[in-house]
């Protein structure tokens, strides 16, 4: 049955995707053949990757992306002690380095307003910047939830349940529409900054629950061994408990990352020009009328799928590296 369906669909699909597809050209008129018009994707590629970021300044975005790749690769190659000393601080600084570079006005470059930031690079950088902050923040919330101090525990539970219970779209609307109402008149907090904060809090709520599962799996003897050595609470938590929780929770942490990364496309509804919204803009462009929606969305799907698959591979390989029993 499945084979029958595939046999009927596949040849046509392959024909449309590759064989009679239009690969070369610059305008709509070059798409003369029956198949997909990849010219459309090609013509809009800069938009869909960088948004409206000025062409002359694209190196800044590229530098941020390169830096992110470099940090990930280095943390993978460096051995354990160097990783803690070099990669971890770099990761934590990364969001702020990006802000400095992309905005530019703080470091003497031309200021590029966040209105011009966009495209797939925004999806990637925003997701990375949110994950990096939410990774430790979620753990603090998870610790708070386990705490014996009533205040810390109730605050953590309220935060976790609120940000997990409210749909992310509602959170984005709150961040972009409601939040400014609470600010004193005249203050203008950047929309992207508000979105970033919403993403961090949303992600932290999910991470906290992921960590909670990990925390419950740590045998009590680990705490006792750390206590009996005379380690303080934070030493015990950071040196003994946290690394083991991360290891146990790795599959769920990755699932949460992928979810957040894909959720960044929801930003289109509050008017942030991430990849999906640039694609929609391109589709309604008057020079490209005639329905290239399939090409546009397939491209978006391929790009996101490739990245998420890459993250899966990376996580699988990290899991293998962390497996201290079989090695």
């Amino acid at each position, binding site marked *: 049955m499945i084979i029958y369906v595939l046999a009927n669909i596949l040849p046509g699909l392959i024909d449309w995707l590759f064989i009679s597809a239009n690969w070369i050209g610059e305008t709509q008129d070059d798409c003369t053949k029956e198949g997909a018009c990849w010219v459309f994707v090609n013509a809009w590629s800069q938009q869909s990757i960088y948004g409206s970021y000025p062409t002359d300044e694209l190196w800044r975005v590229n530098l941020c992306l390169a830096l992110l790749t470099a940090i990930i690769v280095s943390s993978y190659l460096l051995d354990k002690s160097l990783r803690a000393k070099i990669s971890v601080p770099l990761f934590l600084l990364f969001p702020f380095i990006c802000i400095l570079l992309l905005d530019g006005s703080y470091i003497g470059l031309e200021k590029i307003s966040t209105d011009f930031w966009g495209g797939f690079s925004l999806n990637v950088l925003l997701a990375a910047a949110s994950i990096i902050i939410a990774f430790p923040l979620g753990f603090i919330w998870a610790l708070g939830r386990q705490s014996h101090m009533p205040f810390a525990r109730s605050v953590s539970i309220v935060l976790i349940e609120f940000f997990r219970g409210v749909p992310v779209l509602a959170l984005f609307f709150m961040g972009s529409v409601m939040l400014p109402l609470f600010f004193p008149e005249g203050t203008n907090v950047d929309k992207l900054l508000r979105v970033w904060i919403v993403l961090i809090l949303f992600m932290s709520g999910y991470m906290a629950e992921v960590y909670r599962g990990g925390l419950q799996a740590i*045998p009590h*003897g*680990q705490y*006792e*061994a*750390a*206590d*009996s*050595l*005379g*380690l*303080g*609470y934070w*030493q015990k938590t950071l*040196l*003994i408990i946290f*690394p*083991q929780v991360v*290891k146990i929770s790795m599959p769920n942490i990755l699932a949460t990352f992928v979810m957040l990364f894909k959720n960044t496309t929801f930003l289109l509804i509050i008017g942030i020009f991430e990849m999906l919204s640039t694609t929609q803009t391109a589709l309604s462009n008057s020079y490209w009328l005639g329905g290239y929606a399939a090409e546009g969305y397939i491209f978006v799907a391929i790009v996101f799928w490739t990245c998420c698959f890459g993250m899966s591979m990376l996580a699988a390989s990290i899991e293998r590296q*962390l497996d*201290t*029993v079989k*090695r």
Partner: protein
Amino acid sequence: MHHSASNPMDKNQEIITICDLNKWYGDFHVLKNINLTVRKGERIVICGPSGSGKSTLIRCINRLEEFQKGSLVVDGVEMIEDVKNIETIRREVGMVFQHFNLFPHLTILENLCLGPIWVHKKPKAEAEATAMQYLERVQIPDQANKYPGQLSGGQQQRVAIARSLCMHPKIMLFDEPTSALDPEMIKEVLDVMIELAEEGMTMLCVTHEMGFAKKVADRVIFMDVGEIVEQNAPNQFFTNPQVDRTQKFLQQILNH
């Protein structure tokens, strides 16, 4: 070694003083009016049926368990409800657990160096040198860069002993150190403990290894239902137990 009690002035010094210690789990009275004094260099074996409170008692000494009534003084420091105070005591007291409790995400060497580096603020090189010295003493220096999961139970327990010794404790607590081991590995762990005892370490050991008790203990304590029922020198304890409950217990564990 650091632990030798060669100074005769030390010999009679009290290092642990437990007075009227009482502990409850809810309504359950786990420890009842415990009075115990341990002198420096003394080796004590605590035995008794399961549920008698013997593990709970030694876990009170480094505050893995709280107690509700009574007092406990370790090396001149009174155990009070204060984090700094508890940490001070824990630095003087090493503990070896039934299930080893090594840190599985760290190598053997890292397990040994963690305390010295973070608690005693030793430089890494110095901590590693000390760690290797102790690994040699427990005869597994070649395992230094492996992870705990790759070692046998006996090896892991020897690492756990070495990890405690790296902190240069004045007192060592052993909580059924051989109970989770396969029979052929018990000896290698006991040998390390015997060597330690012979060097003059103050030891409190919860164990059913009566051979070990006969060989090294200065005093054997028998506990039942939360009380110290009887305590005596090992030859007296084993040949001439004073109390019925002790006799029954000894019959049970020696006749099989």
